[in-house]
């Protein structure tokens, strides 16, 4: 099925050539985009936007706390040519794209924060989050949906600026997503760009792990598979995947 039936509950339009489905209300933009990708074979770059999400959940089911009236919620379908072991690079590309797009639209200086946040570069407050949901096919990534949520009020932006923000962020995502089609070299470039914007690096961190356990050290970098490298004062290096992360806390003081 490629044409929405009458009364499907959304409008289909285009924004600068990008197919967009707009819902007044939806369970979540990510769920709608996943369904579009799976059932209707949505093309790469297709986007879903809604005025109100019923369950705006991020990584690990973390609920988005911003009120719908001042939230931009948008999900974009990607179809990167990625092997499964590099699938988590989608998180980095998403975070980087949202940072660049929102920065371009708002004029605010922003940064990334591994693995899923966009923060104000001045005060470290979260202004947006991303969530990557990857669908695997035989030996490769079949599709990915990148959900982006932005706190417009914190950015000093009005709801009428949503479309500009969607356009800027999705365009930045199209640009960054090209790296995902270039294999390991492309992912390394994406990682390098992400690290240049990541405010977490160099911080002393305490990380609670899934299913259990804890690790501590200095966040040194992010590698090509989106793992955070944590290094101790004596040089012990640990790598934390996004799946392993329960909670991350920046710790003050010397160690």
């Amino acid at each position, binding site marked *: 099925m490629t044409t929405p039936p009458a009364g499907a509950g959304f409008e289909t339009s285009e924004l600068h050539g990008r197919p967009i489905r707009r819902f007044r209300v939806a369970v979540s933009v990510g769920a709608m985009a996943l369904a579009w990708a799976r059932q209707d074979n949505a093309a790469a770059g297709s986007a879903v936007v809604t005025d109100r999400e019923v369950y705006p959940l991020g990584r690990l089911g973390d609920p988005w706390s911003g009120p719908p009236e001042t939230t931009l919620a948008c999900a974009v379908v990607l179809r990167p040519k990625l092997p499964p072991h590099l699938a988590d690079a989608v998180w980095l590309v998403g975070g980087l794209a949202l940072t660049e797009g929102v920065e371009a639209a708002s004029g605010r200086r922003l940064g990334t924060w591994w693995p899923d946040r966009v923060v104000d570069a001045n005060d470290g407050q979260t202004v947006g989050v991303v969530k990557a949901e990857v669908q695997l096919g035989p030996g490769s990534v079949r599709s990915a949906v990148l959900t982006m949520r932005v706190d417009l009020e914190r950015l000093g932006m009005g709801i009428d600026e949503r479309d500009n923000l969607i356009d800027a962020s999705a365009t930045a995502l199209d640009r960054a997503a090209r790296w995902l089609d270039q294999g390991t070299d492309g992912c390394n470039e994406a990682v390098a760009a992400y690290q240049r914007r990541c405010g977490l690096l160099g911080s002393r961190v305490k990380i609670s792990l899934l299913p259990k356990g*804890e690790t501590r*050290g200095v966040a040194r970098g992010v590698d090509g598979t989106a793992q955070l490298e944590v290094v101790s*004062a*004596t*040089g012990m290096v*640990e790598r934390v995947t996004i799946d392993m992360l329960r909670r991350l806390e920046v710790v003050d003081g010397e160690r």
Partner: protein
Amino acid sequence: MSDGAVEVARAFVAAVAWGEHRRVWDLLGREGRRTVLRVAVGRGMDETLAARLGDETATTKESDTFLADLVNGLRADLAGADLDSMGYQDDPLGSEGGRAWILLTAPMPDILGGDVPVGTVELAAEDGTWRVERLSPRPAP
């Protein structure tokens, strides 16, 4: 002298928490090192590697790998305890000439029974300083 033992126990737990693998090894005493290597051999480590680790002639990569495993094993022993608010008490029943037992406790309000023991660090005096012989995730009997 047991004040020094408390500080060494505290430093040892902090080194485990912060992944300071070489500091963990430095704070282990001779018997403690023999014990961890014996356990490692029992779990399949090559005995010649264990010998090199014991006399510190192993390569950096070999020792880094072994010590990282050691740290993660010790972290598992301390799992569930809040390492930042842990209490350290000199256990007078266990401490005697040349040896000290430091009780690790988790803080609890008195109304709930007071601090809860979560482990023990056994230390021995070596060459004028305290060194760790054993970390037990349960309190000493």
